[in-house]
């Protein structure tokens, strides 16, 4: 349960320990989050993240979540909620892919960024609706509105997820559940390793700060950095040059 200052105490990371999710988790653990569930693919990175969170004072559980295995999502995530209320869930699985027009690779990008993220979010939303409280944070991307350039497959998947999450925001209004869509620009993280950063690039820590502010303010859409929200009126080609 959140406390009187609106500080969450339990946190679910769907997509495991992504750089952005970890930065957010570390900040929340430094305040009141005590129970963290890492739902992601088993890996040394997931274990290392669990150890870091435990060291910071959290009780850490892991759950094996693979975005591709949509038939398992209800059980894997359902079990997490059965163990206790989840105050905040971050859906942060992502796969950048490339510009190859390879149908199977394109399907992978759609599965991780859109289909799997959506099914996971639906299971979380349903459980939170029964709790009548909770915040569901869905990681979209600024590129969701600009499917062009080398990552347009990724952008197209993110625009599907973004549309879904905005619809979910409406569907859950009045249920006590807060849905928040986060649209970061270029973030220096594992996802973008090897890609040349554009003019405006941020860090996982900056995104984490924006997520915390958004949770506190109960924002429905969060741009990171905030200025990106103002750029939507500029022509797409200009924006691409600034944001990558």
């Amino acid at each position, binding site marked *: 349960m959140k406390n009187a*200052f609106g500080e969450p105490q339990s946190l679910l990371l769907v997509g495991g320990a992504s750089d952005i999710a970890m930065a957010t988790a570390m900040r929340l653990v430094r305040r009141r989050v005590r129970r963290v569930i890492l739902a992601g693919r088993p890996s040394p990175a997931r274990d290392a993240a669990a150890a870091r969170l435990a060291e910071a004072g959290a009780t850490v559980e892991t759950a094996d979540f693979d975005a591709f295995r949509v038939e398992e999502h209800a059980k894997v995530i359902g079990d997490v909620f059965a163990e206790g209320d989840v105050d905040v869930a971050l859906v942060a699985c992502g796969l950048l892919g490339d510009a190859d027009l390879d149908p199977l690779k394109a399907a992978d990008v759609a599965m991780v960024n859109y289909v799997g993220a959506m099914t996971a979010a639906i299971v979380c939303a349903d459980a939170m609706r*029964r*709790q*009548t409280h909770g915040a569901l944070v869905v990681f979209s991307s600024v590129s969701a509105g600009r499917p062009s350039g080398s990552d347009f497959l990724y952008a197209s998947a993110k625009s599907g997820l973004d549309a879904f999450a905005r619809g979910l925001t409406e569907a859950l209004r009045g249920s006590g559940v807060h849905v928040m869509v986060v649209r970061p620009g270029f973030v220096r993280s594992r996802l973008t390793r090897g890609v040349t950063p554009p003019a405006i690039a941020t860090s996982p820590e900056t995104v984490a700060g924006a997520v915390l502010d958004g949770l506190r303010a109960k924002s429905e859409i969060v741009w990171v950095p905030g200025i990106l929200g103002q750029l939507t009126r500029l022509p797409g080609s200009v924006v691409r040059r600034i944001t990558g």
Partner: protein
Amino acid sequence: MANKTILTGWGRTSPSVAELLRPGAEAELTPLVLAPGGRGVIARGLGRSYGDPAQNAGGLVLDMTGLAAIGPVRDGYVTVEAGVSLHRLMRELVPEGWFPPVTPATRQVTVGGAVAADIHGRNHHADGSFGNHVTALDLLGADGVTRTLTPGDPDFWATVGGMGLTGVITKATIRLTPIETSRMIVNTWKCPDLESVMTRLTQADLAHRYTAAWVDCLSRQGRGVVEGADHARQGAARSFRARGFEAGPGFLPVGLLNRHTMGLVNRGLYATTKRESVQVRPLASFFHPLDRVGHWNRLYGPRGLVQYQFVVPMGAEQTLMKIVERIRRSHAASFQTVLKRFGPGSGGWLSFPTPGWSLSLDFPTTTKGLAWLLDRLDELVAEAGGRVYLAKDSRLRPELLPVMYPALAAFRERRRELDPRLVFQSDLARRLSL
């Protein structure tokens, strides 16, 4: 959910949605407890606890005020249904010469809430807490069976102070205090600094049944006013009258209660108090001055207020002074700051009062740096062997609870034996992993 209701405590922080039902007879309770739905059930009295103990997000909440019968007084004992308020009890019994054994600073609490939080009053040093005066209580358990518990039964002490988590209290038998009048003889002393407040309060405890001190946390010295009172004997009539405005002053501007206005009020209060005086006052004006203003909690605006009450053992005076100094330096303004010395505890496993110094404060939730400040105060309190009051808490770090309440492990274990499916659930229980 049929009757979806947003519930909060008196502090109006952390609202949550539940199905609220108001049973009119004891028989209606059993089926609700046996099949409460997936999110469990909790009893609620008049919602005067400040935080979230009488809330149950997504589940069922039983408004107990429909069960409010008062039995006849026999040899100074009365058996009542748990939903009766102390307000009604006083209205009915004071004219007959009886007073509740313990009354908090508001009459608007139920007997069920008084037992579940094992409440204390200004007579704690002399008479103990509410649970000390309960001789029997009926508890409806998770198995749907109602048991009569007496102080010889360990489950009695799991329930006194147990915040509703052992079951629904349906009835209680209470030992009443005989009174000759409905007046109080009130002695007042003005004290220029915290040390003299503490000394005077210690002296007052030896001479008077009801004592407490108001402390001006904004003043550099921690000056205050000490009151020591007793029931007046013979003479004045016994009628119990309490004036009250029903609606709260919702029109008062938000932010009226700030550091500056509070400083002014405190200075004014202090200045107009005589150095030493003796007055005869009506019961209500002595015990429940705030009840005259209906929903005064609305003065704090939509974000509400955070109450903080702790006790540190006798001998930890340095901690108490350090805390008062910390608060003063933090510029957090507490509107009502009350100091009280507790006597021995009742034996309730999660009961709050233990021998020592107790300070209660209330802050607007929006006070800058408040979350951080209170975390630091918790550490000082825990280090000194003290604890915070669950009926007022809304933000404690869960890991400090076992340090503050050594019987917590026993409580957790017994709760799970009595209620393996954890049917009795509240936001407080979830927040603090009770």
